[in-house]
């Protein structure tokens, strides 16, 4: 009993029905907000109404049982409304000040930490990685978990850092984890040319599409068998785009796949405005499930940032102020030629003249 065409295309539920009463009443009439404590924001409306956001982290996946428990809390304190955030936290909009601590208690009782506000570690954005995707070079969810274990307290602390830190983890360079503009980003990287499995390519893939897909024009039809392809090893830079089109070009390799570390991205227009994250470590091996070395290096960067940055200075703003050569010096991260751009806009990243720190 398939839906007919005119029953389709009806779109998302109407938000008007989903707004908490305090939001509806004070819609567009909010006056100011204050950070009360970790995970809690007080909003005051022109009407004098108050609303308290209690923000809590939830795992990347939640079971029905969990959702229902979250709903229980929302019904108890928030008139049956619940919000989620753009960083995938849950948000309880609590109209009564006196209920704030109860909400916190109930949510934390579920094991979900309340935090991620103000100058704390924000929720880490992660893609699905090995839990669902076919292209990952690494596993975002377990890396994210490992980082959260390390930075647990800093998630809950409004004054953990000079400014907020936003981390993101993507299993591959598709960057679904929105890594490219994060303060600290971890991105899975392949390092070997895909293997062409002729039989699969012949059967399932379009050779012209494959050829067009490669940003480096590294794919050519195979001489003698034009139904499959060969890869020019000198040109391929392991992006995996061909594989995502065609099963016959597997690129995964447990031995060579791993992660890269990037820092200094930012989205908001505050102060100097948005920045892209930049590559500082091209490769670290995959070490599930606890990712000790990745965690260690992130911890080191964070601690140095904490100790050195000025107040209200995001990681990228701090590094841009002191200079990247200084950053590499004080973090003692070995500088590799991989950090030197050689793509299209590369020349813009080269230093012009002699204005560098000798270090």
């Amino acid at each position: 009993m398939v839906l007919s065409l005119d029953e389709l295309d009806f779109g998302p539920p109407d938000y008007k029905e989903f707004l908490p009463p305090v939001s509806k009443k004070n819609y567009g009439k909010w006056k100011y907000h204050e950070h009360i404590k970790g995970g809690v924001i007080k909003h005051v409306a022109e009407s004098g109404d108050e609303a308290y956001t209690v923000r809590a982290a939830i795992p990347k996946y939640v079971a029905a049982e969990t959702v229902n428990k979250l709903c229980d809390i929302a019904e108890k304190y928030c008139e049956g409304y619940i919000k989620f955030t753009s960083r995938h936290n849950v948000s309880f909009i609590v109209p009564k000040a006196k209920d704030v601590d109860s909400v916190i208690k109930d949510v934390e009782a579920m094991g979900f930490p309340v935090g991620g506000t103000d100058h704390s570690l924000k929720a880490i954005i992660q893609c699905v990685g090995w839990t669902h995707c076919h292209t990952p070079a690494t596993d975002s969810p377990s890396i994210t978990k490992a980082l959260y274990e390390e930075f647990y307290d800093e998630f809950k602390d409004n004054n953990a850092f000079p400014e907020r830190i936003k981390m993101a983890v993507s299993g591959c360079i598709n960057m679904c984890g929105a890594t490219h503009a994060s303060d600290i980003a971890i991105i899975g990287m392949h390092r070997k040319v895909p293997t062409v499995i002729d039989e699969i390519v012949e059967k399932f893939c379009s050779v012209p599409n494959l050829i067009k897909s490669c940003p480096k024009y590294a794919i050519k039809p195979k001489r003698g068998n034009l139904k499959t392809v060969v890869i020019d090893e000198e040109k391929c830079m392991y992006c995996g785009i061909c594989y995502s089109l065609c099963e016959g070009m597997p690129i995964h390799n447990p031995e060579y796949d791993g992660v890269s570390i990037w820092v200094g991205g930012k989205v908001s227009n505050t102060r100097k405005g948005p920045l892209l994250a930049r590559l500082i470590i091209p490769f670290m091996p995959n070490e599930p499930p606890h990712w000790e070395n990745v965690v260690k290096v992130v911890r080191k960067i964070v601690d140095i940032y904490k100790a050195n940055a000025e107040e209200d200075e995001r990681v990228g703003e701090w590094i841009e102020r002191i200079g990247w050569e200084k950053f590499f010096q004080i973090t003692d991260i070995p500088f590799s030629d991989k950090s030197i751009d050689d793509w299209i806009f590369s020349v813009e990243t080269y230093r012009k003249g002699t204005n560098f720190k000798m270090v």
Partner: protein
Amino acid sequence: MTRPVEELEKGKWPSYVTEWKKAGYTGLVEIYNKALEDKKTHFKHGGMVGYPGYDAGVIGRLSDMPEILGSSHVFRMLEPAGWFYKTESLRKVVDVWTKYGNGLINFHGATGSLQLVGIETENIEPAFEELAKLHYDFGGSGGDVRTLAACGGPAICEYSNIDTLDLYQALTMRFIEDIHRPRFPYKWKIKIPGCPNDCVAATARSDFAIIGNFRDAIKIDQNILKEYPEEKILKVVNKCPTSCMSYENEKLDIDMGNCTRCMYCINEFSKALRPGDDKGATILIGARARGRIGAFLGWTLIPFIKVEAPYTRLIEIIVGIQDWWDEIGNPKERVGEAIYRIGFGKFLFEVGKELGIDPVPQMITRPRANPFWFYWPGEVE
């Protein structure tokens, strides 16, 4: 020794593996454990799955060990604007999902969709038919308009210069067919933050960003400002990126001709400072992750535009640009890359002119340094 997957249940931080177990999704637990052991994914290409009449929105996925896990598709449901839910409704969604899937939910995908995770092929149709009854639609994959995203805006935040939620709803409905039926060279993402704080990361992640903004003066309540420690006021004055603030005799002055409305001071003095009254939005174009030539942050296309229902002008602009891109775009070429390839100047000549988007210096941080420009047909007589 514990298996790696159980290792991930340890620690203070809540575990997604535990959630899988609660949901009883054993196949996923097992296949993932293999992945952790083998250090590689065990998922592979998924094949074509979906709902008749829709060509997008279900991500088909198969594992490479069908004996452990068969198909495990994902629904990308269009989230309610600003991710606000009524629990009553949410509980019903969960019930449907428990019936047909595993009850496992991802709140939300990185684009913003409500992701219903792990359904087998044969359950897709009945599941959606029940979700539809609850008025939950899905969409967004392939060369289509993706699920939009809007910040909570006027519902909870004092900074919003536009009605992000209404705009989300209106644009989603305007483009609902394009959300369901890919027809473009590649994806097209729209995100709507209410102010330049950009709480939905539109600047980094949307081909077309509608960022609430204002163009008159920041409103200052000098009396309330005095409640803030002077030290803090001086810090902000000092860090203002354009040095356009001054604080003398307990009075804050902002030279609006030089302010870039970066939000920093407003954020720091939420009680005393407010965006102006002449509200609208800034339009950025072209952001996305890596593409084929590297990540782009969205660049200023329209410094300021009024944004009022029914959003006719905004829609005209979106459609105009989409049509142009649809015509000239290469496969897998997003709009920013297409403009780069064709040239911003030519883009302005070919489509900007028609849409009333004029070249203005706000579009750039600095003018060109090379002498290689073009004259358009008719320009040099």
